[in-house]
């Protein structure tokens, strides 16, 4: 390679790095702004312009009872729907990965369909169902709805994780005299636990952040995203920024922990 070509290659990789860095700024800017404005003391009710720095918002996190209730509702619904969806989804994924039967491909596709359906259609159709059956809209309907879309996510995630599972481990356990129940709890379950953990975290996050389906089926109940949406016109209290930043930091921590655990397992294996 001539000098000119080497120069251009070096330049190209520099430009790529700069471009990637700019893209990273684009990605993180909104998060940064939300976090930044949690320290803002807003003039009036809209928290859109910077006025003065204050810790007050963080100290008065629970000032607005509606907001606190919304956060609580979101967390409750996320917890319950995650537990149900992860259980159901894992069972289904196991069945889909291990057994060959005639309709497997069709069922694969069927489970995938909710992911391809626009949220607005999912939300509206569920609303139709609940209204027709005269089920009152509230936390129950939200849990039912959230489990529905989360099951698909869990199945797709677990299928990917389970496809590398070595069945011979289970056969070995059976050879050594373990019952199917024992085999599952002592051999299979610990091995698929990381996959279950990842699916659960995914489902939890999706439930917390869900807006469209929730809005259609919440009735009078407010979840955190619904609360923020309703307040956009009237003025979003800065405590919302604080909560949003907390959720984000919690996610970052969980992911970091997950990565650390992976690395420890890898070094322990050596």
């Amino acid at each position, binding site marked *: 390679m001539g000098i000119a070509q080497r120069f251009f290659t070096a330049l190209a990789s520099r430009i790529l790095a700069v471009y990637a860095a700019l893209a990273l700024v684009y990605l993180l800017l909104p998060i940064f702004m939300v976090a930044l404005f949690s320290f803002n003391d807003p003039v009036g009710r809209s928290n*859109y312009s910077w006025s003065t720095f204050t810790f007050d918002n963080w100290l008065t996190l629970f000032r607005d009872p509606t907001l606190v209730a919304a956060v609580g509702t979101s967390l409750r619904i996320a917890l319950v729907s995650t537990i149900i969806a992860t259980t159901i989804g894992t069972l289904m994924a196991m069945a889909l990965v291990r057994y060959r039967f005639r309709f497997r491909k069709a069922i694969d596709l069927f489970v995938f369909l909710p992911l391809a359906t626009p949220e607005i259609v999912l939300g509206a159709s569920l609303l139709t169902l609940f209204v027709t059956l005269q089920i009152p809209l509230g936390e129950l309907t939200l849990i039912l709805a959230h489990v529905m879309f989360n099951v698909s996510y869990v199945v797709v995630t677990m299928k990917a994780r389970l496809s590398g599972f070595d069945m011979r481990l289970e056969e070995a356990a059976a050879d050594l005299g373990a019952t199917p129940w024992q085999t599952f709890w002592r051999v299979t379950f610990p091995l698929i636990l990381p996959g279950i953990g990842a699916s659960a975290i995914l489902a939890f996050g999706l439930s917390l952040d869900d807006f469209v389906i929730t809005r259609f089926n919440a009735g009078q109940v407010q979840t955190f995203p619904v609360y923020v949406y309703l307040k956009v016109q009237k003025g979003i209290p800065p405590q919302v920024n604080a909560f949003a930043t907390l*959720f*984000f930091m919690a996610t970052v921590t969980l992911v970091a922990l997950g990565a650390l655990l992976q690395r420890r397992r890898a070094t322990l294996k050596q």
Partner: protein
Amino acid sequence: MSSRRVGDLALFMPGMGWLAVFFVVPLIMIFVVSLGSRDAYGGVVLDRLSFDNYLRALAPAFLPTALNSVKYATATTILAILVSYPIAYWISRYGGRHKVLLLVLVMLPFWTSWVIRTYAWMIILRDNGVINGILGGLGLTSEPIMLLNTDLAVILGMTYGFLPFAILPLYVAIDRVDEAVVAAARDLYSSGRGAFLHVTLPLTMPGVIAAAILTFIPAIGDFINAELLGNPETAMIGNVIQRQFLVVRDYPTAAALSFMLMVLILAGVTLYGRLLGTEELTSKAI
């Protein structure tokens, strides 16, 4: 049937049952509603079923919103791919041992709610927001540029929201390209640019197409960005559907529009499945 087969079926039933009751049945219901009509009090009348609502949905009145949806979804898809490709390329080439971690880090911003993200863009794009502040501070503009409540704001917000849908398939495609092939290409074309244009890019084209479809399809159904960052002119199909359901309460028309949107999207997904194989489709997530 042996007891083993029965046990296997039991693994399925909860999931299938849940999806059947809360996914299939509601869709059937909404289809039935779309065939009905509205009575004076806003209820649904089902005695004379017809496809009238669908004909009305295709009426010229709804055309601008449909065009908007296509316009914004297309712009979003192109921008998302343009932004995601270098990121995915950089992580794949230069990520080394931390590749997966970097990928996860890049996805982290999307662990906040849509509404929060869109609200953040409202802060950034306002007349006295970050961008105008920088432009004014650098002396490039004497007056704030109106960025919020425009087409541009909607596209920016949508692109941001759908980046992960583009990054993941692009990363998978780029990562699959064998280093040895790229090295050989470098030798043959004696430049990085040639190797990229003639070898890497064509090899990753299936990934680009996958990313395009995976971004375009949900983008068409989006409406939050158009609602919070746009103006009445930027209304998309989703906005209309939402209004029909929650404000106007014309359920039959809303149901017809929803069903049409869904059929459109399913057609897109089927196309994707045909092009790239259904295995690819059903295992696209992590």
